[in-house]
């Protein structure tokens, strides 16, 4: 019985650690420069959590590119900047800093 108890706990430890390694993302697009789609082109999104957030609504929040020509969806949700943090009563809850990097607008192809 004692052996069974020890083995079930050992199994849980091994499974959880191996599971975490197995499901580890191999390519994380969110580590690349993020862009958002606006008005027929892509602009630099800035820093997540500082300049923008991705809310849990449908759609694509940010995109990434490898060649500056083709943009691929990265983060799901809706791209939100300062206005998204304003409640209905008009009081800002968590104001975001404006994007400091020069807006690098690129046309999609």
């Amino acid at each position, binding site marked *: 019985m004692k052996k069974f*108890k020890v083995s079930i*706990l050992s*199994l849980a430890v091994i499974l959880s650690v191996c599971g975490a390694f197995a499901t580890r993302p191999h390519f994380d697009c969110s580590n690349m420069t993020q862009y958002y789609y606006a008005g027929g082109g892509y602009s630099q999104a800035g820093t997540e959590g500082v300049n923008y*957030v991705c809310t*849990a609504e449908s759609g694509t929040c940010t995109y990434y590119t490898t060649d500056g020509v083709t943009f691929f969806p990265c983060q799901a949700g809706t791209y939100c900047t300062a206005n998204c*943090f304003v409640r209905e009563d008009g009081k800002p*809850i*968590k104001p975001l800093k404006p994007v400091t990097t020069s807006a690098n607008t690129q046309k999609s192809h």
Partner: protein
Amino acid sequence: MLECISALLILLFLYASVSKFLDFKTFIKEMNNQPLPNSWTPFLVWFIPCSEILLSVALIFERTRLLGFYGSFVLMGLFTIYAILILSHVFPYVPCSCGGVIKRLTWRQHLVLNLFFVTLSVVGVIAQRKKSFHSIVITKNSFV
């Protein structure tokens, strides 16, 4: 039964904490994406995974298991309250539900998962207390 409950909680906590440490940069970003002050991020990104590891260790050993069940109840209770607040639109926006494969879950599914583990922790506390009480009674009787 106690070992099975412990094993399930260890599976959850250890998986979640190791996943966070393996992709720590993304975890920081996900934490910044939550509707909490960004000044909390440096504290939370260490506190959450470290407390999950400590609870897993506490749940392994018989002597510290009751403490582990209490800790699991508190931590899962806090996560559950957070999920309820998000679903009730208390925060100005609904953030992504992040963390390993768990990020594929919606907030409603998150809530169900959390409630299951809160219940499991409560059952663990009750069962462990009963077991500890019985062992005390047996020890006392053996002295009489």
